[in-house]
């Protein structure tokens, strides 16, 4: 815990020292590097095609138009479908919500059981689980396809939900295990003496104390699943493509003229969800990461 009463940090230095100019100069250059593409995208997406052809990619639009955004959302064509990204968006939402809920629910119980209800072989179980996170996904693609086919859910949204839940398990379990092991063990003991069972302790004692780590898990899963392309393209069919796959199809379509403004708008739309999540919960995220890292 930081002691707020004592002075901390280095001695204050003059504002325009050579060191500060170097430091902030570097920071500004790096910021520009990251902001420029975004700037170009936003500007391009609000220009008409004639203006884009002039080639001034950094300049703001002379005539602002939101037509590309509308087209990207509702009219852009991929193959035979011409309903834009909206279909992909709703597919992604339908994949995202059950995947996030299911993976966090299972992983939190996993972590809790691994810390507080240690069973014979729980260490080995955990080691195997963690090992799973080091295996490249590509190795498991084909076996997964066969498993889903045998289960009869290949190509459905639920198939993809299952895949996301499984592949999220190692890192999420690790996250929850570390967080729960940082909670005092005596609390768990006290609850047992008080007659609470496995689920009673989990829901009444552990979960209410673990909001930060649930937020971290939520952010990791939402961004991870939303941005996923590989699983989406492998495990779904054109009707159920998630937004990222559809974005790719729109941007990479070879027919007709390249509508840069529509492509830019589509890309921004796709990136909006994780961005919003970060803005809303950034503070909780940092707190949760820090809390989870205390003990491992």
């Amino acid at each position, binding site marked *: 815990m930081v002691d707020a009463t004592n002075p901390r940090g280095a001695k204050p230095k003059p504002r325009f020292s050579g060191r500060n100019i170097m430091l902030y100069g570097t920071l500004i250059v790096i910021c520009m590097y990251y902001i420029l593409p975004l700037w170009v995208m936003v500007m391009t997406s609000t220009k008409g095609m004639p203006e884009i052809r002039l080639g001034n990619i950094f300049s703001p639009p002379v005539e602002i138009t939101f037509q590309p955004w509308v087209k990207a959302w509702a009219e852009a064509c991929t193959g035979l479908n011409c309903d834009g990204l909206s279909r992909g968006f709703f597919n992604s939402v339908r994949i995202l919500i059950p995947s996030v809920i299911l993976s966090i629910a299972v992983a939190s119980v996993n972590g809790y059981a691994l810390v507080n209800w240690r069973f014979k072989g729980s260490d080995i179980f955990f080691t195997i689980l963690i090992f799973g996170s080091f295996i490249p996904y590509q190795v498991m693609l084909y076996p997964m396809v066969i498993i889903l086919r045998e289960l009869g859910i290949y190509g459905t949204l639920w198939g993809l939900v299952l895949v996301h839940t499984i592949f999220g398990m190692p890192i999420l379990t690790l996250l929850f295990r570390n967080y729960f092991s940082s909670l*005092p063990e*005596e*609390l768990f*003991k*006290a*609850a*047992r*003496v*008080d*007659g*609470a069972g496995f689920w*009673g302790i989990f829901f*009444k*004692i552990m979960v*209410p*104390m673990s909001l930060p780590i649930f937020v971290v898990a939520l952010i990791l899963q939402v961004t991870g699943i939303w941005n996923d392309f590989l699983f989406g393209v492998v495990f779904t069919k054109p009707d159920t493509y998630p937004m990222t796959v559809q974005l790719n199809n729109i941007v990479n379509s070879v027919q007709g003229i390249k509508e840069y403004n529509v492509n830019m708008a589509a890309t921004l739309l796709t990136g909006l969800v994780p961005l919003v999540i970060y803005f809303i919960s950034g503070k909780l995220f940092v707190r949760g990461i820090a809390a989870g890292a205390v003990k491992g």
Partner: protein
Amino acid sequence: MTNSIEVKDLTLNFGAVSVLKKMNLDVAEGEFIVLLGPSGCGKSTLLNCLAGLLDITDGQIFIKGKNVTWAEPSDRGIGMVFQSYALYPQMTVRGNLSFGLKNAKMPQPEIDKRIARAAEILQIEPLLDRKPAALSGGQRQRVAIGRALVRDVDVFLFDEPLSNLDAKLRSELRVEIKRLHNKLNNTMVYVTHDQIEALTLADRIAVMRGGIIQQLAAPQEIYNRPSNLFVAGFIGSPSMNFLHGATVESGRAFQFGSVKLDLTGYEGGAILERSKAILGLRPEHLTIQDHEEPGKTIAATVEIDEPMGADSLVWLEADGGLQMSVRVPVERRMARGTPVHLKVDISKASIFDSGTEQRI
């Protein structure tokens, strides 16, 4: 009197490490037992076994005559108070107190009644709607005791409950726990490494080392007649003076260096003649005097004088560089280097066999 707790041949191994070794312990109804020992001696482990928080390797545990060896913690009729208080942070004091009762599906009016009673006994009524974070250390520990109290249990288990408190609060709560015991007359098992707590609270103290109870006796007995060298050295501050020597003249005298002490009046077993023995003398069982009495005094030189308020401790060097401490009334200041004679009260001394380390 029936036994409240009976522990039979309790054994606990963590992998290859044996933590508790064939332990037997009977606790009478209403008795206050303190488990005392250095860290790692298995005292907290024993308490966790009694509470049912650790699965034991072998043996049996009875509480109130009922075999609870494999019973759930909540079914054993025990309440437990932890060192870190272990209050549920998201619940109010009232929520903390009622959690166990709600789990037992007790009707609300009965819960309210019990909380009111516990709050009154512990004087925490104004705190009932606060969260633990808004309480001081002493208040938290009181709530933790209350959590055991409301469950109306036969046995209270305390796991170093005062270790996280500062010295002043500790002595206050110590008295309060004693008062609580007088009032409720429950059986209490109390784990501590603080010998003052042990000596003041206990009806009987179990001094433990290496998973074995070294001595189980009343505090005075433990203090005055420690059963072995470990107990003698562990209890008492500063610790007992140990003189390494031999018993001679068929056990009538103790010889170390050139000094020979008369053992007439020793309270213990047959001393016999032993080539190696240890004489234990507590600092308060020695008196400083100017003149020598053959067979009753040890010559020594004053090294350091430590005034402690009520009395003072004098550290001396005896024959052969042996360091000794003596407790003397505070009026008497001793200058460094003063040659004195220490008179031994042999009736309060302890003699140990060097080999077995047992008291004779």
